């Protein structure tokens, strides 16, 4: 079985899916990623699906599951690079990708994660009664 490589860039784990994954490979990615989040303490995961020419319900569910697992492990997931034809097909298939943040490319994905993490830090530091409450 092939495995999808996971790269660490600063505080972010980057996964660029470059192969037509079998279901087993998708499940292995889920488990590998959870382990890497815990091992590295990274606060962000970017999944680049630029090279995927389809996202079916299995891969869609994998993306949702990864987002939920990372959330529990204090990391934000952003899916980037979805092709227009894939987006059209996903919607028609009826898949809503609940709880998944998306961005058009890796760069914007990194900005999104940096912003989300900064908000969280602000919120934690913000214990003065008169301080403006930051809306999430």
């Amino acid at each position: 079985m092939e495995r999808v490589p996971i790269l660490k860039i600063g505080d972010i784990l980057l996964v660029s899916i470059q192969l037509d994954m079998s279901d087993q490979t998708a499940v292995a990615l889920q488990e590998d990623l959870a382990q890497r989040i815990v091992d590295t303490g990274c606060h962000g995961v970017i999944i680049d699906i630029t090279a995927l020419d389809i996202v079916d319900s299995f891969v869609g569910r994998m993306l949702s599951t990864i987002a939920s697992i990372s959330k529990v492990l204090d990391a934000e997931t952003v899916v980037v690079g979805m092709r227009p034809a894939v987006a059209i097909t996903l919607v028609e298939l009826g898949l809503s990708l609940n709880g998944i943040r998306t961005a058009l490319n890796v760069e914007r994905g990194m900005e999104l994660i940096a912003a989300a993490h900064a908000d969280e830090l602000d919120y934690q530091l913000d214990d003065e009664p008169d301080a403006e409450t930051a809306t999430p």
Partner: protein
Amino acid sequence: MTTGVDLGQPQAQSVRSDEDVVRVRQLVRAVAVSVKLSLVDQTKVVTAASELARNTLVYGGGGSVEVTVVNNGRRNGVQIVFADSGPGIADLDLAMTDGYTSGGGLGLGLSGSRRLVDEFQIETSAESGTRITVTKWSR
């Protein structure tokens, strides 16, 4: 429209493992490209094939897929037959409902793939298993 596509020669792929589902996707894509489906239509038919091939494997206990180039006099299309000799689908109306699953899936395989193709036909029985035929026409 006359094209160089080879009509009526079915290409078969058995579905016994995860990797075979990947092979079905690749075969359907190659045929969809050969009949000049648009990129969106290629994506739709390959996605539908992926869902149905997975059903053949997971619910039908494995089976076979046949991909054929068809022509209705005006347009070329891709026809795909998914056949298994599994237990069949007990309640077809229920199985075609969005969100219903008898397994651990999302329940979008049958209902969702029907929306992605132009023609969808299903025959199922406890004796002879399930046979699904789908067609996507070029525009």
